[in-house]
C-alpha cells in the first residue's frame, strides 16, 4: 500500500470539477482512495481521515492531491492520469466559436473541430506551404493539391511531417483516397484490400479504375506528389505512406505507382518495402517496365481477384488512317507519359523527331490562368478540332478521366467534335462503375460518335500506334 500526497499551489479548480476528477481517477485499477480537492478545513479533515498527513501550511488556495494505491507504480499512474485529466479540454463546448465567424486559418479550423484528421490545401502555390505548415503544426495529415511549391519547401514540410508522424500528400497531389473518401480528382471506388501509394495522380486513378472493373476494392490511395521519389525529397512521404498501409489491418496488398525513382531512392524504397509485412508491388512506369494495366493485373492477382481484361468499345475494324502522324492530347500527365512509352517501340524512340506529338494539357505551363482541363475541357477541345482538320495528323489519341470534381459530362462536347472526324480517334477512358459521369454511358456515347474507346490507356496507345500509317500499308 502506497500513499501519495501533493499540495499544489496556484492550481485552483472549482469543487465540482475536482469531485468529478477524483471519481474518475478512483476508478483506476489498483487505486483504493483518491481525494483531489482544494485544501479547505473540511477537505483537510477528510484527507486526514483517509490516513494522510497534510502539511499545516496548506491553505484553501492550494490543491490537495491524495492517492492511496496498491504500489508506487499504480499511484504514479493515477497521478499521471489526474494530470492528463486536469489538462483535458472539456468535451462539450456549447459556447465555442459562438458568432466568431468562420475560421480563417487551418490551425483555427482544426482547433475548433477536434474530430478533424486531415486538411486539404489548394491555395495558390506561392503561399500553399504556409497553409500546409499550419496544418502539420495543428497535428493533422495534409494533402497539398497546389503546385508551384518549391522543392526546398517540400523537403522542409515533409521533414516536419515525418517528425510528428504525420502524412504529407503532395504538393501537386491531384488524387487521394483516404479510407474511402475521395480528395481532389478522385474516382468512386469500393473499399477493399488494396492500398496504393501514388507519386502520380492519373496513374493511380487508372490502376484503381482497372481494379474496380475486376471488383477489387481500394481502401486508401495515398498521394505523395510527383517529386517524392526524387533524390532531393528522398521518398519521405512514400515511406510514411507505406508504413501507414502496412499498419492498416484492412490492407492486404500495397502498390506504388510512380515514374521511375532516382536510383538511390529506388533502392531505399525497395529495401523499405521488403521490411514490410505485406506484399508490395513497385509499379514504376518507364521503358522496359510494366505499364499501368500490367501493374493493375499484378495487384489483382496478388489479392486473389479475377482479372477481367480491359474493355474496348467501337468499330472492330477502325477506319484506316491516312499517312501522317499521331497526336496525343492528354489531360492526365502520367497517362500521357505512359502512352509515349507504349508507342515508342512502334513509332521510333524519338517521337518528336518523327513528327508524332504528345501534349499534356494538365501541365503547369498550360494551366496558368485557367482551370485544370479535367474541369474545363475548352482548350483541348479546340486543339482537337484543329488536329482533326490538320492533314498531317493521321490518328488522335485522347484520355478522358472521370470522377469526383472532374467535369460532369466530359463526353458531351467531345462526342460532337469526334462525330465529324474523318480519321481514327482513340480514347483512353479512366473511370469506375460508380463514377458520377457513368463509365459505360460515356464510353457508348463516344463510340457512337465514332471513337474507339479503351479502359486501358496502354491498349489505346498500342492500337493508335498500330493505326499510324495503316492506310498506306
Amino acid at each position, binding site marked *: 500500500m502506497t500513499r501519495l500526497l501533493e499540495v499544489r499551489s496556484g492550481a485552483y479548480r472549482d469543487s465540482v470539477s475536482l469531485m468529478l476528477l477524483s471519481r474518475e481517477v478512483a476508478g483506476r485499477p489498483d487505486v483504493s482512495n483518491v481525494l483531489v480537492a482544494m485544501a479547505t478545513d473540511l477537505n483537510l479533515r477528510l484527507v486526514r481521515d483517509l490516513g494522510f498527513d497534510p502539511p499545516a501550511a496548506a491553505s484553501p488556495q*492550494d490543491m490537495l492531491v491524495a492517492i492511496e494505491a496498491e504500489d508506487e507504480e499504480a499511484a504514479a499512474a493515477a497521478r499521471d492520469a489526474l494530470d492528463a485529466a486536469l489538462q483535458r479540454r472539456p468535451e*462539450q463546448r456549447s459556447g465555442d466559436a459562438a458568432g*466568431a465567424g468562420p475560421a480563417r486559418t487551418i490551425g483555427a479550423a482544426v482547433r475548433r473541430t477536434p474530430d478533424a484528421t486531415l486538411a486539404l490545401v489548394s491555395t495558390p502555390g506561392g503561399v500553399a506551404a504556409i497553409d500546409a505548415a499550419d496544418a502539420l503544426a495543428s497535428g493533422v495529415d495534409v494533402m497539398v493539391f497546389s503546385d508551384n511549391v518549391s522543392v526546398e519547401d517540400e523537403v*522542409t514540410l515533409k521533414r516536419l511531417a515525418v517528425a510528428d508522424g504525420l502524412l504529407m500528400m503532395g504538393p501537386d497531389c491531384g488524387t487521394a483516397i483516404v479510407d474511402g473518401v475521395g480528395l481532389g480528382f478522385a474516382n468512386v471506388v469500393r473499399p477493399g484490400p488494396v492500398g496504393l501509394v501514388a507519386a502520380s495522380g492519373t496513374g493511380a486513378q487508372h490502376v484503381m479504375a482497372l481494379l474496380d472493373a475486376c471488383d477489387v476494392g481500394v481502401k486508401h490511395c495515398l498521394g505523395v506528389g510527383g517529386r517524392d521519389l526524387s533524390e532531393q525529397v528522398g521518398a519521405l512521404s512514400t515511406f510514411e505512406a507505406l508504413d501507414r498501409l502496412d499498419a492498416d489491418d484492412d490492407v492486404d496488398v500495397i502498390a506504388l505507382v510512380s515514374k521511375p525513382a532516382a536510383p538511390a531512392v529506388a533502392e531505399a524504397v525497395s529495401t523499405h518495402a521488403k521490411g514490410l509485412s505485406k506484399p508490395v508491388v513497385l509499379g514504376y512506369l518507364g521503358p522496359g517496365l510494366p505499364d499501368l494495366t500490367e501493374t493493375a493485373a499484378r495487384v489483382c492477382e496478388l489479392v486473389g481477384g479475377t482479372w477481367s481484361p480491359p474493355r474496348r468499345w467501337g468499330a472492330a475494324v477502325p477506319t484506316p488512317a491516312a499517312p501522317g502522324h499521331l497526336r496525343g492530347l492528354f489531360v492526365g500527365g502520367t497517362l500521357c507519359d505512359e502512352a509515349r512509352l507504349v508507342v515508342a517501340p512502334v513509332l521510333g524512340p524519338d517521337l518528336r523527331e518523327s513528327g508524332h506529338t504528345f501534349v499534356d494539357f494538365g501541365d503547369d505551363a498550360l494551366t496558368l490562368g485557367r482551370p485544370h482541363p479535367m474541369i474545363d475541357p475548352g482548350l483541348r477541345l479546340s486543339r482537337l478540332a484543329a488536329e482533326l482538320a490538320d492533314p498531317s495528323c493521321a490518328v488522335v489519341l485522347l484520355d478522358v478521366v472521370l470522377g469526383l470534381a472532374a467535369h460532369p459530362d466530359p463526353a458531351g462536347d467531345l462526342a460532337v467534335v469526334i462525330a465529324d472526324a474523318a480519321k481514327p480517334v482513340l480514347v483512353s477512358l479512366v473511370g469506375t462503375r460508380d463514377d458520377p459521369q457513368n463509365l459505360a454511358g460515356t464510353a457508348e456515347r463516344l463510340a457512337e460518335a465514332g471513337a474507339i474507346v479503351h479502359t486501358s490507356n496502354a491498349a489505346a496507345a498500342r492500337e493508335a500506334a498500330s493505326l499510324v500509317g495503316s492506310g498506306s500499308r
Partner: protein
Amino acid sequence: MTDRRLTSAAHVVTAGAALFADALDAQVVPTTRVDWSPPAAGAEDALKAVLLDPRRGPANARAVRQMLGATALLTDVRTAGEALGLDRGHFLHAGPPLSWERSSGPMRGALIGAAMLEGLAETPEDAERLLGEGSLTWEPCHHRGAVGPMAGVVSPSMWVFEVTDETSGRRSWCTLNEGLGKVLRYGAYSADVLDRLRWMGSVLGPALQHATREHGPVDLLTTIAQMVQMGDEGHNRNRAGTLMVLKEWFPHLAESGLPASDVAEIARFVGGNDHFFLNLVMPACKLVTAAGHGVPGSTVVTTMARNGTDFGIRVSGTGDEWFTGPAQVADGLYLGSYGPDDANPDIGDSAITETAGLGGFAMATAPAIVRLVGGTVSDALATTARMYDICVGENPAWAIPILDFRGTPTGIDATAVVRSGQLPQINTGMAGRVAGTGQVGAGLVTPPMDCFVKAVHGLAGQVEQAELSAQPG
C-alpha cells in the same frame, strides 16, 4: 509493428478551391471550410520562413508550458526606489521607449505630476522644462520587469506591489491603483491628484506592507482563477479580485495598531475602487508572460504595451526587440460630455493582461461589462472564441464557466495574427488627449497589424541566423 496513426478523412478541413470542398459535401463527409485569404502583402516570405522553421512547434509549446508553469505571489509592498533601485530624477513609463517630443498629452501630464510629486519641480511649467531639456530621464517599465497601467509612470517615492514567481525567482512590480477619474496614470496632475498620491505614500503603502508581510504571500494566480469564475476578466473588471484581496488584508489591517480612521479610510479606498486589483493582475500577468519569453524559435507574443503614441510588442523568439506601430484610439463609451475627439490613442502596459490570456481574451466570462464597452453578451462570447484562433494554448487554471470551463486562450501566436488578419482584442480605459485631463472613457481597441508584420520579419531574421549558425564549419 508500430502503432501508427489511423489514416482517416473522418472530418476534413479545406482551404482553397471550393470545388474540392463541394466534392467532399457530395460524399457526405463532414467538412470545415476555411475562410481563406492571402496573408498580409509583403509578409509571405517571412511567414513561410517562420512557419517552416522546425523549432517553432516545440518552442511555442515550451513557451506556453513555461507560462502556465509560472506562479505569482504577492510577497511585499515597498517603495519603487527600494524595490526597483530607481534613482531620483529617473522614471519608468508604460509602453515601448519614447522621447519627450513624441510623448502624448497624458504621458506628459503623468511625467509632470511625477516630477512634482518627487519635489523635482514646483510648478507644471518647471517640470515640463526639466523634462523637455533632458535633465530628467525615463525608460519603459518593461525594461525593469515592471508594468504600469495607462501612462504607467513610476517615480522612486511611489509604493509598488512586489510579486514573485517562485518557479523562476523572477519578480515584477506595479504601483498601487489610484482609483478612477482624475488620476496621475490618466495624465492628471492637479493638487488633489498629488495629495492622493502623498496619502498613498504615507498611509496606504506602509499599511499594505504591514498587512502583506503579516499575512504572508498571497497567491494571485489562484485569486485570478476565482475572479474569472466570478465575472471579472481582469482588465476592465476587477471587482471580485479587489474584494478578495481586501478580505486577505483586512484582519491584519485591523490588528495593525493603525488608527481606526486610517483603517476605515484604507478599506473605503480599496473597496470603493473596482480597479484596485488590476495593479496586482498586471504584475502577475507580467510574470506569466516573462516565463514564456526568450525561447529561441517561439512566435508567442510576450509583451503588448502602449505609450500613448506607439503600440509595441515583443515576441519570445526575438528577445527584447520592440516591434511598434501607431497606437489606435479605442472604440467605446465616454464619460460625461467627452467624445472621440477628446480621447488619446491607446496607452498603458495593461495589455499585459490580454498577453497572458485575460482582459479581452477572457471577455466571455465578463458579460456584465460588455455594455460598458458597447457590446452584447454574444459579442463577448464571440470575442473569446476568436482569440482561441490566434493562440497557441489554453490556460486550464483560468476556466470560463459559460464555455463549459474551457481555459482562457493563452499565448498569442504572432504568425497566426498575420495570417488570419485577426488582431488581439484589448479592453481598455481611455485617457484624455490633453495633459491633465484624466480618464475620458473605456472601450475596445486592437493593436496595429504593422507591429505583428514587423515581428514576423524579425522572427524570419532569427530563423536565417539559426540556419547560418547550424551550417557546419
